[in-house]
């Protein structure tokens, strides 16, 4: 007979082995040689913490009471795993990309990092999981007591054993769950130990099953016959419960904090899901394969009144198979311990990140950046949380007395945890889901669960018989197990139906009626479209001065060396040197994720917010940014305008410069021309005056001739100087115009007579007097001067045998033009461009002009607002004088 002492020794040995494995795995993971630790096999096995002692012991009891209904607990998770493509894949991707630390963190992160929501989920989880932990304690204690009964020599104290079991589990969870504040929250040691326990419990149950089927019942056929002959021999499952529990177990599989921990947080590689999609259902199938045979054989063999929950232990014991019983005990022990450890870890992360840390932070005022290591505080708060959670479980067990059937507690916990489902699924698939909606849904679901399932399940001390039968205050339609007067449903189905449907309704209505904050909308987009952009803009902005504060804060959470390494790497990534990177949005986002791995998304967000100055993505800030960019646009517009103005000015300056250079050249040319023009007459004047002075005996007629030459040359000089003066006056714009009225004909008459008077060469002038009757309002003398000049030119330069000049007046585009066309050979094309320049003369100097006439004409016409130009393409020399339209109109 196995003594209790042997059992305790084996137990301790097993625990030591687990410690060793966990320790070795942690060491291996630290050195990075842990490829097999991250295999799909370990991942699948770690998922098996779904199968707790409730499964190991309770399933058989469940089957003994309700037949095949127990299998629904496994069918739900099977469907979820097989349909991993629909939901789990997205959940894991979101969890990895957002560095989520727990289910509360995920919900909070999705709904704008709301800590209120995180607290709600945490409370719900603690309330749901505490009875579950109590259940595990109970199962361990019960199994101990089985051995104690069989060992009369042992002194067994149930209360003490439960205390020591709870304390031992707490120590294990603290040692391996909070050894380090890992940035990615992965606990290789714990996961490996859990995987080993998974193997142990599977093998133990299979061993018992094989022993029962082949050892006792005598093979598959006789077993089946035995099953059909037993009291659960026919299919008798309540239809509502079958569907409801399948659904419930599927929901709980996703929402349970410990499942979330191993499935999402500890996940190393998304592709492991694909292997787990078939391997985990296989594990569940094997776990439930022998449940019904064990139950049936137990019902047959064991005396009336034996607790069917412990058939797994009592059958081998009764058959004298002590080794098998011991193995089976270890299996149950494994199921209980692995569940408790992971659940305590997951819950402690939630409690510490979402309740303890925010309280501690706010109690510290604004001083996140005060130096000092926060890691110790985080770790300490987690350890305390684990201890508190274990204590809660222990006291729950002591208070409830451990009498209730195991399975019912499990189902109640499932229904509570499943209240997270609408917020979770809505958050992953519906961008319109909001924080208000999630809060409303959780609150409604939670309240209904407590009212319809938890309190009635806990018995008379919490809810009186009167309330159960007649409703609170006698309101019959509020009876906890028959809401709205709908009676006759199984209490479980009733509660699940009402709480989840009203939860979902509140969630939808709340979401539809409220408006999400910008951060919520950003996070919503990142969650729902996680496959499109696993990283996205979240928009922190900061200044360089804040880097140091961030550094101080990060050192406290990540540890000095890790934080320095992280900052250094970031600074290098930004292309700089030194240890302080620019607080760019990318860097801040990365830092936030790094921190959220240690303290949760909401806390990390709040901490960075404290230093950087609030989330930069409020509507106000967006508006400010929009304003700023509008200002920038305006400013750049102004700049552009200015720069175009500048380039315009520069171009003008360049032009002016060119002009100045040209003018300077012109001036030089002009001076040399003028001196040349002056020199020629001066030379002859000097020469002839010298002759007159020095030559004796000049004939009087010779004297007269020489004096006449001197006179002529002096006249020419005077004329030249007059012209120059005239030109300079015109060019400087100092000329005074004598505006007067007259007709074009008169001006032409005067000009022709003045030009041809005293001419020795005949010039025939053709006119069309009829068209010349045009009234003018201009400086008539100056206009006449232009005409005289043009007519005189024609007279001087026309080389035809019978020179004639045609003066024609017409209207070209509303402008009066006067053309002077002679019948000579005209001006050669290459000279046409320069005839209006000063001192320009075409051909030989036979007429003795100074070459200023046309230049003066052009200046005059410019002053008068008209134009004189050479008209190419006529048979002879041709000039066109355009009279300004304004003068004509003004005269009308």
């Amino acid at each position, binding site marked *: 007979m196995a003594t209790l002492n042997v059992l305790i020794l084996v137990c301790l040995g097993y625990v030591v082995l687990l410690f060793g494995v966990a320790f070795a795995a942690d060491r291996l993971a630290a050195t990075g040689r842990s490829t097999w630790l991250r295999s799909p*096999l370990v991942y699948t096995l770690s998922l098996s913490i779904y199968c707790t002692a409730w499964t190991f012991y309770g399933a058989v009891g469940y089957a003994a009471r309700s037949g095949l209904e127990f299998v629904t607990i496994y069918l739900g998770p099977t469907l979820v795993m097989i349909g991993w493509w*629909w939901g789990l894949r997205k959940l894991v991707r979101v969890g990895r990309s957002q560095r989520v630390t727990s289910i509360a963190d995920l919900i909070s992160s999705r709904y704008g990092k709301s800590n209120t929501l995180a607290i709600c989920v945490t409370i719900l989880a603690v309330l749901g999981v505490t009875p579950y932990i109590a259940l595990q304690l109970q199962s361990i204690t019960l199994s101990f007591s089985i051995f104690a009964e069989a060992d009369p020599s042992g002194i067994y104290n149930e209360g003490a054993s439960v205390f020591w079991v709870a304390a031992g589990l707490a120590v294990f969870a603290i040692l391996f769950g909070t050894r380090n504040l890992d940035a990615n929250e992965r606990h290789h040691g714990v996961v490996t130990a859990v995987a080993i326990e998974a193997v142990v419990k599977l093998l133990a149950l299979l061993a018992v099953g094989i022993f029962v089927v082949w050892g006792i019942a005598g093979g598959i056929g006789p077993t089946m016959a035995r099953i059909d002959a037993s009291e659960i021999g026919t299919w008798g499952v309540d239809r509502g419960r079958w569907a409801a529990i399948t659904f419930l177990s599927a929901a709980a599989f996703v929402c349970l904090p410990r499942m979330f921990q191993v499935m999402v947080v500890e996940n190393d590689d998304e592709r492991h899901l694909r292997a787990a999609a078939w391997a985990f259902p296989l594990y569940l199938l094997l776990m439930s394969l022998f449940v019904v045979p064990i139950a049936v054989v137990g019902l047959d063999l064991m005396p009336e009144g034996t607790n069917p929950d412990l058939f797994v232990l009592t059958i081998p014991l009764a058959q004298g198979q002590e080794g098998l019983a011991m193995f089976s005990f270890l299996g149950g022990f494994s199921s209980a311990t692995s569940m408790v450890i992971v659940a305590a870890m997951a819950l402690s992360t939630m409690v510490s990140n979402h309740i303890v840390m925010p309280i501690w932070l706010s109690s510290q005022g604004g001083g996140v950046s005060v130096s000092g290591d926060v890691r110790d505080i985080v770790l300490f708060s987690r350890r305390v949380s684990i201890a508190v959670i274990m204590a809660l479980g222990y006291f729950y067990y002591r208070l409830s007395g451990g009498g209730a059937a195991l399975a019912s507690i499990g189902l109640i916990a499932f229904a509570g945890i499943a209240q997270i489902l609408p917020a979770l699924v809505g958050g992953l698939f519906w961008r319109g889901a909001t924080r208000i909606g999630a809060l409303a849904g959780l609150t409604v679901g939670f309240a209904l669960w407590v009212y319809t399932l938890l309190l009635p399940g806990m018995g008379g001390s919490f809810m009186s018989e009167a309330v159960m039968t007649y409703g609170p205050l006698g309101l019959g339609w509020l009876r906890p197990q028959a809401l709205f007067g709908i009676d006759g449903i199984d209490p479980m189905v009733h509660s699940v139906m009402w709480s989840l449907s009203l939860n979902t309704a509140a969630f939808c209505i709340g979401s539809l009626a409220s408006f999400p904050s910008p951060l919520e909308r950003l996070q919503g987009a990142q969650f729902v479209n996680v496959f499109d952009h696993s990283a996205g803009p979240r928009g922190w902005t900061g200044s360089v001065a804040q880097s140091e504060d961030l550094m101080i804060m990060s050192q406290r959470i990540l540890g000095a060396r890790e934080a320095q390494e992280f900052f250094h790497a970031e600074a290098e990534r930004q292309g700089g040197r030194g240890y302080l990177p620019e607080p760019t949005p990318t860097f801040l986002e990365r830092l936030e994720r790094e921190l959220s791995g240690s303290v949760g998304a909401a806390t990390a967000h709040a901490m960075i917010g404290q230093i950087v100055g609030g989330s930069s993505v409020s509507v106000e800030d967006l508006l400010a940014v929009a304003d700023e960019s509008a200002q920038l646009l305006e400013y750049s517009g102004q700049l552009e305008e200015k720069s175009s103005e500048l380039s315009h000015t520069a171009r003008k300056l360049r032009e002016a410069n060119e002009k100045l250079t040209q003018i300077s050249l012109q001036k030089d040319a002009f001076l040399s021309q003028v001196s040349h023009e002056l020199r020629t007459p001066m030379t002859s004047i000097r020469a002839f005056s010298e002759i007159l002075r020095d030559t004796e005996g000049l004939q009087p007629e010779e004297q007269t001739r020489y004096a006449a030459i001197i006179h002529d040359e002096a006249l020419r000089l005077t004329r030249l100087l007059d012209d120059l003066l005239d030109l300079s006056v015109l060019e400087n714009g100092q000329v005074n115009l004598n505006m007067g009225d007259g007709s074009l004909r008169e001006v032409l008459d005067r000009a022709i007579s003045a030009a041809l008077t005293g001419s020795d060469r005949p010039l025939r002038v053709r006119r069309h007097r009829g068209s010349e009757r045009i009234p003018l309002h201009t400086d008539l003398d100056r206009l006449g001067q232009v005409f005289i000049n043009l007519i005189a030119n024609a007279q001087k330069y026309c080389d035809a045998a019978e020179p004639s000049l045609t003066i024609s007046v017409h209207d070209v585009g509303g402008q009066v033009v006067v053309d002077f066309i002679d019948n000579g050979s005209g001006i050669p094309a290459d000279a046409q461009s320069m005839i209006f320049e000063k001192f320009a003369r075409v051909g030989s100097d036979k007429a003795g002009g100074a070459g200023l006439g046309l230049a003066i004409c052009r200046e005059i016409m410019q002053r008068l607002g008209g134009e004189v130009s050479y008209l190419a393409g006529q048979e002879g020399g041709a000039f066109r004088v355009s009279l300004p339209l304004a003068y004509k109109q003004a005269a009308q």
Partner: protein
Amino acid sequence: MSAGPDTEPERAVAPPPVFLERQSYRRRRLSDAARLLPILGAGLFAVPLLWPSEPEEAGAVSMSSAIVYIFCIWVLLILASAGFGLAARTHGGSDTQGPERD
């Protein structure tokens, strides 16, 4: 000013090709089937709802046949899921960015 539907500006991005290569077509249908699997499973697991729930009723299903049915469906689903996983891996589904680590 006639802004009919035919005057709308052309989309700059060319639409994806209507027809896929045979292999990617197969792969997509494969993932469709994988997605349908849980629905099929839920349906098959719901079949017992049609069975008479009271042991006294006529035509009551014996426990052994119920067990055989449930576990057969279960094995079927596991095999199908494993098959799809294997097929997705050999087909080099779009979600695989490299060889499996193990």
